[in-house]
């Protein structure tokens, strides 16, 4: 198997991932060091070092994971599902709260586990496994019941935390997998419409006031420039002031003078926009979309439905987060607190992304060469 695996290994994909990850670490460094950024100040930043370790460890783990035949995971569907659900429920009782939401479980002092992040990959694996089961058909309405229930349970728990952004990722993942699995257009349209109505109802009756405000303020952040609108304005100021060619790496004034909040996590793209300008930010986006493009190429070449669905799920997750996260920084999307995978500072997010990309690499490495 070794030779075939190395021959099939998707080096372009691997290289793209490494490129983005290294870039991400650099940007986290830029936004975490206060004052002048030098090599020594970078390496004395705890945030930078942590992200560097995660990046190196994550990349290594990803490569290791890619050598394991992804088909193994299909059999572990139930334990994975139950374990992830258990963590999600645990966070409700033992979690650390921040910003009105309970999202983290502290593991030691170094790491805060965010179960909703792990749940994303768990859902991709288990839903893919469910859909890849022999004889499952989406021809009839009834075929949708099992997969939707499958996703709905963890999604609801996350929604209750509350973590609107992550629960919406579940919608994107599920929609994409079901779509590729052959869901009928009519069903898609009906569900889309249903989802829309449900969203409106949820907005009116379920969401907490702070969520509501955050959801709509992006349309007009100047309504409340000092509080809810602050992040959005400062982010737009940062990105806009980058202009065409940017202020230069480590030289963004919004970033370096701390005007930009959450600059190394949710608003990391604002740092990219300010310091590298339209040119750098566009190149970054092109590379990122190229990654998604390549993942979907792996999906097309996958030897079985499970592998295909895995890749589609990962691609959906990355696309959705890219759109929502970058969209948030340029205020075309509401502020949902979703990180930019591979780039934002944060262990759980990085870990999840690396596991999912490891699976994609595994699908690529274990593809059926007879396709060609």
């Amino acid at each position, binding site marked *: 198997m070794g030779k075939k695996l190395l021959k099939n290994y998707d080096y372009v994909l691997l290289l793209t991932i490494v490129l983005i990850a290294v870039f991400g670490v650099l940007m986290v460094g830029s936004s975490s060091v206060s004052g002048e950024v030098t090599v020594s100040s970078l390496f004395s930043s705890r945030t930078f070092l942590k992200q560097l370790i995660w990046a190196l460890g994550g990349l290594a783990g990803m490569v290791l994971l890619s050598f394991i035949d992804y088909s193994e995971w299909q059999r572990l569907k139930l334990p994975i599902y139950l374990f992830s659900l258990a963590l999600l429920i645990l966070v409700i009782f033992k979690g650390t709260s921040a910003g009105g939401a309970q999202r983290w479980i502290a593991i030691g002092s170094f790491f805060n586990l965010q179960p909703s992040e792990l749940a994303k990959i768990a859902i991709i694996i288990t839903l893919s496994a469910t859909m890849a089961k022999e004889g499952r058909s989406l021809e009839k309405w009834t075929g949708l019941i099992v997969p939707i229930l499958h996703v709905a349970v963890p999604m609801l728990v996350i929604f209750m935390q509350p973590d609107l952004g992550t629960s919406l990722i579940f919608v994107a993942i599920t929609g994409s997998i079901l779509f590729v699995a052959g869901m009928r257009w009519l069903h898609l349209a009906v569900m889309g419409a249903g989802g829309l109505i449900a969203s409106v109802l949820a907005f009116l009756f379920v969401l907490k006031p702070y969520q509501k405000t955050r959801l709509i303020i992006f349309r007009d952040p100047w309504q409340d420039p*000092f509080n809810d609108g*602050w992040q959005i304005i400062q982010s*737009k100021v940062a990105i806009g*002031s980058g202009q065409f060619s940017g202020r230069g790496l480590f030289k963004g004034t919004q970033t370096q*003078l701390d005007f930009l909040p959450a600059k190394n996590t949710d608003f990391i793209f604002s740092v990219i926009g300010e310091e590298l300008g339209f040119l750098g930010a566009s190149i970054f*986006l092109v590379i990122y979309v190229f990654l998604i493009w390549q993942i979907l190429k792996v999906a097309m070449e996958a030897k079985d439905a499970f592998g295909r669905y895995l890749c*589609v799920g990962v691609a959906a997750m990355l*696309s959705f987060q890219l759109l929502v996260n*970058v*969209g948030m920084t340029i205020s075309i999307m509401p502020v949902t607190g979703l990180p930019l995978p591979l780039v934002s500072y944060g262990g759980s997010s990085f870990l999840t992304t690396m596991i999912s990309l490891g699976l994609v690499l595994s699908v690529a490495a274990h593809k059926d060469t007879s396709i060609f």
Partner: protein
Amino acid sequence: MKMTLWRITLLRILALIILAVLIYNLFQIQVIEGEEWANVADNNRFRHLVELAPRGRIYSADGVELAASVPTYVVALADVQNKDRREQTITKLAEFLQMEPEIIRDKLKKHRRKFEPAVIATNVDFETILQLEEYQHLMPSLVIQVVPQRYYPEKDLLANPLGRVNEIDRRGVEGLERKWDEYLQGADGFSVVQVNVDNRPVGDAANSTPAVPGNNLHLTIDTKLQKAAQDSLHRVLEKLRTEKKSKDAWAGAVVVLDPNTGKILALVTEPTFDNNHRYDKAWWKDNLPAEMPDWAKKLTDRTYQYRRTVGSTFKMVVGMAGLETGAITATEKIYAGGRTRINNQPVNDYGFAVHGNVDMRRALAVSSNIYFGTVGARLGSEKIYEYIEKFGMSREQKNAGFDDIALDEQSSSLDYRLGRTWVGGNTVQISYGQLNEFTALQLGNYVSMLANGGIHYKPYMVEKISDYTGKTVEYFEPEILDQQNFKPENLKVIREGMQQSAARSQYLKNLPFAVAGKTGSAEHDRSSRKNLERWRDTHSWWVGYAPYDNPEIAIVVFMEYAGAGSRSIEVARDIIDCYFGLEE
């Protein structure tokens, strides 16, 4: 299978659409609106701080600081967008300043120029500033500014000519402060400081221009003399009132000039006021006697902003004109019999005194209106006005050319010819100083010209301008505006007459030198004679110079409604004593 691949291709296209949407929006923000956002970023991070230049000082000739610049403290708040930090600052500051937080919030709301700190309190006392500085870390957006403010340490000394500075834009708006504003102002310093989100300065100030203090004015005024003249005038006026010699003796003026240069050595107006309270109604009410009438209690400077009939002090003009033109000789005698009519104008000498046959010298000594009315009638009004001009007292040249204070703040003489039908009697009346009105400063120049032989020096009080390091920037030499070729023998006659006049005064006895002078008791509102209620005494004038042989100072004393001119000599004596160091 085929359908699946097609659907994945659709997803890939969707990813490209996401890319397109994001890049389109980025282009919009970064390239199209980029410059605007860059400006916002600059406003975010730059604080524009102004360092106000201390205004130049004004010194007297003897080095006394007449106008100083003292620092006052202004508490301001920089624009901070974080609500918590803002509120924390407001709450703490309100505590220290003992203000309602709502007032501070209101001031912040009304403040428009966001890149400049909003002023919360001015003139904050030093104790409070020390406290604020100690607890500055609790108030992240606090800015303490030093605002130099004008202060006049000598309070009422030279108050009027010094003028006033507008507290808001800190421009001189009256007097010397206005005329010399350009020099006194200095240049404000600016610095642009980069701050972080906590409003803490980061790094060095970019673009920093330090403030340059204004230049200093050095005046010709001698404060010792100024003070002596001011005190004497005040004392004599008060004495006249308390001794019930003149109920209206409230106001007056003194001009002391150096006849050899035109330097103004003293410029006194009475009543005076504390210039730190120039427009402070309460101060005026509390510090000037309640019984002082409103006509006296005004800001007018009676040396250069006020004209009055000058009475017999004018007679030397007519005397010089008569001698120079040959209308009369020094020795020709005219009979002064107490009262007569000249040009159909009734003329009488003071108290209807009969002086007999008097020549020029004697006529000056006894101040004969009949003599000078006769000479004036011989000369005709045109000749008299010609000599008024020769002595620098024309209406066109305000205060003999004095221009250290803006001309629009000065008064000029009243030319009685204007707008009236002239009759022969008017020529007689102006000959002994009625009808026409002059300023004290005009008389000062005129008597200086008699003392120096006809040189019209421009009267001036700003002698030197120095910069804040003390280096002389400009020095003003005496300036000759005009020179009359009076015959020395004619001048000598007039001077001798003046000397004889002065010698008659009890106040000018026991001096180590002779003095030349001439009194004037000027009638004014003729109609009021019939109305006893409104009747006021004549204006009391004295002009002169000392010493007679070698003039060093020319003096004009004016006491409004104070009666006989001889009363003014008491003030002149105090000035002479002070200048020559003759006080006991």
